[in-house]
């Protein structure tokens, strides 16, 4: 094998010979995937160091609460977690898995372990796809991105797990394309499904791009298996009365936006551009963004060719993800996206386009690894290799130390757990989370914006506002009962009557929030079941309206179907059914 970077990267001749023997190990044993087992620990170490640099201020200090990232102590496994209560199954089955882990470990350890694991998996997975020591550069380029910073701050931890799984999916898809077993690919797709709908969508689409359309049976098999292991959220979404309605206003509200002086294209190309300006890490609006752009362009110019040679499908997926990420903000494309989001089942997954950038981030990271390798091979350019390798960190110092100190950990005050106990002891009945609003500021958790933890904390069906209030617009939620309460409040109806008619028996008020005082006045005189500095629980006497019942069959069908399919792949011993045919086999040579 020559030292030519492209040849070294692809190892095409040897892979072909190896796959002729029909063993993945042989296929990957000596090609550029061959030393993957050795590069994995290197990448894992890089990912671990990166993760520790980011998470050090919060490790061992309680749970991190940030925007949509809500973890509660001893989380109850409710209908919302299982997808049986008719709510939109956004966190199914990821929260269920996290909650099950929290049965045996402290919830803070579970949360921080998952976050750290995302960094380690991301680093190891990216490193396995690049030959030699430059794999470390690929690991760093994949684990240290504005995408990671912005999704971490906004609390989309399942996306980060999906992001971490993606390079493993791609590695397994490449091996399958070269005639290896499909089993690793299917197992990694199942792992992506465990990380939720968005992660599964990204992983499945990328895997299909990598393995290609031919043979059609393999394509269809992978697609079918992916659908089966995603049943835990697909079934609740399909079975939901009225479907999953999407507010068209959400497309513009959650469209990618420029978070650098480089405009939308530059922001997305440098792997940022989240819609929420409050979750942009420090430095993105400075000249450092130009450093990031130089790093990305250098990586693509010097290192894209071997990536393209190895996997044109991955590069196509990356380019497609870039286009989809921009779609919501590009005139013309935004109308198409709006139509898809509103009218196509599951189209809502494309609403927040920037989250789809993961394949593009992987392409850039792999290109960076190859570029570093290419520079390192010539003594004259070796110093540039070192610079390019560390450029991701230099361009984004704001990710370090809790994303510039913006992640904080805290312990729930005792009265939160006492409220949960009071609710548990009360006769059956639904609880309303008040004051009516989706987000809270918790003074004991750094006063940061966070999704109301009460619905996650209480082991009861909880009615909560699910509209998403933004500075300029409020994006409607999907729960029709919540919408009726919002409309009633806007019309000046009496709160206790409104809640009772919605089927609510108890009202839990989070004090010290906007609207708390008015809410307490509206509930004055009602029997108090619990009261503390932060929290109040009252009963709403009198008959209540009907509440939708739980549908356990949804979980049985969804989770059961997924587990059966996964089990079939794990126990299947006949390799022929799970092995991709090589080109030679397909042509009968």
């Amino acid at each position: 094998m020559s030292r030519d970077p492209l040849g070294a990267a692809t190892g095409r001749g040897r892979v072909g010979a190896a796959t002729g023997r029909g063993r993945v190990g042989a296929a990957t044993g000596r090609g550029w995937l061959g030393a993957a087992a050795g590069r994995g620990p290197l990448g894992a170490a890089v990912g671990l160091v990166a993760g520790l640099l980011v998470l050090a201020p919060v490790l061992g200090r309680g749970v991190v609460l940030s925007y949509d990232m809500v973890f509660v102590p001893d989380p109850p496994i409710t209908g919302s977690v299982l997808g049986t209560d008719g709510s939109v199954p956004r966190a199914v089955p990821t929260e269920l898995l996290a909650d099950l882990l929290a049965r045996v470990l402290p919830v803070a350890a579970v949360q921080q372990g998952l976050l750290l694991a995302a960094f380690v998996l991301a680093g190891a997975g990216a490193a396995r796809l690049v030959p030699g020591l430059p794999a470390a550069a690929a690991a760093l380029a994949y684990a240290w991105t504005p995408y990671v910073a912005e999704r971490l701050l906004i609390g989309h931890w399942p996306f980060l797990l999906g992001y971490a799984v993606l390079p493993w999916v791609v590695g397994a898809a490449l091996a399958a394309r070269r005639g290896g077993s499909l089993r690793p690919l299917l197992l990694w797709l199942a792992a992506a499904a465990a990380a939720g709908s968005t992660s599964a969508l990204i992983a499945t689409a990328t895997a299909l791009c990598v393995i290609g359309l031919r043979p059609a049976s393999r394509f269809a098999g992978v697609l079918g298996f992916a659908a089966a292991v995603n049943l835990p959220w697909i079934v609740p979404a399909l079975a939901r009365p009225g479907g999953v309605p999407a507010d068209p206003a959400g497309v513009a509200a959650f469209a990618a936006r420029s978070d650098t002086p480089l405009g939308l294209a530059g922001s997305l190309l440098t792997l940022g551009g989240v819609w929420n300006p409050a979750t942009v890490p420090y430095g993105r609006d400075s000249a450092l963004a130009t450093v990031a752009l130089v790093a990305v362009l250098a990586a693509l110019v010097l290192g894209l060719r071997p990536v393209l040679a190895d996997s044109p499908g991955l590069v196509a997926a990356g380019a497609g993800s870039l286009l989809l990420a921009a779609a919501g903000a590009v005139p013309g494309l935004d109308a198409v996206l709006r139509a898809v989001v509103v009218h196509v089942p599951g189209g809502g997954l494309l609403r927040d386009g920037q989250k789809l950038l993961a394949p593009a981030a992987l392409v850039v990271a792999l290109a960076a690894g190859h570029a570093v390798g290419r520079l390192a091979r010539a003594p004259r350019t070796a110093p540039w290799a070192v610079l390019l390798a560390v450029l991701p960190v230099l361009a984004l110092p704001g990710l370090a130390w809790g994303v510039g100190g913006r992640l904080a950990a805290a312990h729930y005050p005792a009265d939160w757990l006492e409220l949960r106990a009071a609710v548990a002891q009360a006769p059956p009945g639904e609880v309303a989370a008040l004051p009516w609003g989706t987000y809270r500021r918790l003074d004991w958790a750094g006063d940061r914006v966070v999704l109301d933890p009460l619905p996650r904390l209480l082991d009861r069906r909880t009615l909560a506002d699910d509209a998403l209030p933004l500075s300029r617009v409020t994006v409607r939620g999907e729960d029709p009962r919540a919408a009726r309460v919002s409309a009633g409040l806007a019309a000046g109806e009496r709160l206790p009557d409104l809640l009772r008619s919605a089927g609510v028996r108890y009202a839990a008020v989070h004090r010290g929030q906007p609207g708390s005082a008015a809410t307490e006045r509206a509930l004055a005189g009602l029997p108090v079941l619990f009261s503390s500095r932060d929290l109040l629980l009252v009963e709403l006497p009198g008959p209540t309206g009907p509440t939708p019942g739980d549908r356990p069959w949804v979980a049985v069908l969804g989770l059961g179907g997924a587990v059966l399919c996964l089990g079939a792949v794990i126990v299947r011993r006949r390799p022929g059914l799970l092995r991709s045919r090589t080109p030679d086999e397909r042509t009968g040579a």
Partner: protein
Amino acid sequence: MLSDDRRTGASDRGQILISTLVAAVVGGLLALGASLVLVSSASNTNAPPVNKPLITYDQK
């Protein structure tokens, strides 16, 4: 001696005056402190102003 009585009386009046002034200052300070404590505790009650701004998804 009358002069002594007068001197004693004058001294008493002076002491009374000083005591009154000290009491007024101390009392005033106490009242001020109590007011501050009351105002502070009132602002820390469980009933914050109703017009506290709405918490939005895109706030820091």
